[in-house]
């Protein structure tokens, strides 16, 4: 009789101890479901590839997760220093926290910038349509990281995943100009101008700035080759986007007046657009050199 009672007690205890975790799991599931519905409603245009395993597992939450991973790169860029936030009061807890938390304004230099890259990688793995993450990664790798070769690879990947986005081609154009690869720069910029504005709002200030920059850079390449009429057409288009721009007006005036802008463009090409991020091991196979420390930063 006593044995039966003991068994009953054990079984009852087990049932009782499983109750709360079950409730918690159910609550979490409901929360995830609500979050999923909200994300589905707000970001149906930006749905990542649903055919992959990750896509099926995480669904639309990949976009939100990718964005938070991208923000983690910003945290690394500030070396773990928190963004200042507006607070209602400052008390001793916050003063203690300010003393023990990292608080100097500093950024990674040189190859330390590589430490940001895993977060860009994770962000783009989560959401291959996070073009911003691709662009930022390629920018830092090409400039501070002195690895234009890897930056180019990132942009190729970005283009594969976002074939209709002009921003990737704009970045490629800039990268090639910096690397003094004029033909590739021309192709990238021509394609970028054709694809503009893509899915973005043509009235958006940033998107208009992007177009103006692509037009100006392309005009510069025309000037470099001595094609003054083409350059003038593009500069006029750029000027129509931002009518008050004095630099653009001056360039248009110079071309209209018949000045030798090719000479100016060639000087710019060799002096103002130097290879800022030249890798001293460019002749080597980079895959064999993971400990990439020495670069010629001009």
């Amino acid at each position: 009789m006593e044995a039966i009672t003991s068994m009953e007690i054990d079984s009852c205890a087990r049932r009782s101890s499983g109750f709360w975790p079950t409730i918690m799991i159910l609550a979490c599931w409901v929360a995830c479901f609500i979050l999923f519905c909200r994300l589905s409603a707000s970001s149906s245009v930006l749905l990542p590839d649903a055919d992959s395993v990750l896509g099926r597992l995480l669904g639309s939450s990949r976009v939100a997760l990718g964005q938070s991973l991208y923000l983690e790169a910003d945290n690394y860029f500030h070396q773990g220093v928190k963004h200042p936030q507006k607070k209602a009061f400052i008390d001793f807890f916050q003063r203690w926290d300010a003393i023990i938390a990292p608080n100097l304004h500093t950024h990674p230099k040189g190859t330390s910038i590589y430490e940001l890259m895993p977060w860009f990688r994770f962000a783009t793995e989560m959401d291959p349509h996070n073009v911003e993450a691709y662009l930022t990664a390629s920018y830092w790798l090409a400039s501070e990281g002195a690895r234009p070769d890897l930056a180019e690879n990132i942009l190729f990947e970005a283009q594969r995943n976002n074939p209709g986005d002009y921003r990737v081609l704009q970045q490629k154009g800039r990268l090639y100009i910096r690397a003094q690869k004029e033909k590739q720069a021309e192709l990238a910029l021509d394609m970028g101008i054709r694809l503009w504005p893509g899915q973005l709002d043509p009235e958006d200030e940033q998107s208009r700035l992007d177009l103006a920059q692509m037009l100006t850079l392309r005009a510069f390449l025309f000037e470099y080759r001595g094609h003054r009429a083409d350059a003038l057409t593009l500069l006029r288009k750029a000027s129509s986007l931002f009518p008050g721009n004095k630099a653009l007006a001056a360039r248009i005036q110079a071309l209209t007046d018949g000045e030798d802008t090719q000479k100016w463009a060639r000087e710019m090409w060799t002096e103002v657009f130097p290879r800022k991020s030249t890798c001293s091991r460019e002749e080597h196979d980079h895959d064999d050199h993971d400990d990439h420390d020495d670069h010629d930063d001009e």
Partner: protein
Amino acid sequence: MSRVLTIARVVWLEMIRRKDLYVLLILLAALLMVLISVNVYGLGSVARYVKDVGFLLTWLCAWFFAIGAAGRQLPQEEARGTIYSLLAKPVTRIELLLGKWFGAWTIAVAATAVFYLLVMGVTHLRGGHFVSGSLIQAFLLHAVNLGMVTALALAFSTRTTYGAAASLTYVTTLASFVLAPQIPVLLTQETGIRAQALLVLYYALPHFELFDLRQRVVHDWGAAPWSMVSVIVVYGILWIVVFLGLAWFGYRRKRFSRGAQL
């Protein structure tokens, strides 16, 4: 004192027999292996993210382990009926509580030390390094934090089942870690009764964020001022005393009857 240590030893033996620690260790090792196998654009010696995610996982594993270890001690004794033979021995209830807490806390700290060693080893494999001063401080504060978590779980478990105690501890510690530090920011937009409620929460909840030095360790900042670390340690000890006091308050006159406790 020796009775407290004997009870703590029994907690250790029980936790070693259980598989929780090994499962968490294997899980952590597997996740770290996945992390270091990630190809980051062909860049080799990138290690900071391994350190970062590794320590985040360490905090999570230590949290689960500590709550599991402390929260189940008393309900388990009661469910098995072994509490009767235990209290029949010359052991006071305060000694029982202290022994259970000390055992759960020390094994949680020992498990955390193993997790730290694993993360350090994997980070070194990836070419990373550590600033020893901040690492020691981070571990010290983490250990004090685990003392608070185990004391809280024990306090809840004096009057509830294991499941309820664990759930309440998860919710309270999560709120302390995530919500409490954000309250001064939230208060810029709140007024009236909601603002008052948030303010009460701010001062009523322990500030777990003070014990988290991961950012210092991950981003190779040097050691924080020891004077401030000592102040935070004292703050943590005060909370441990408060939680153990609550546990004693809940347990000292508790009556056990097989029907009621289940």
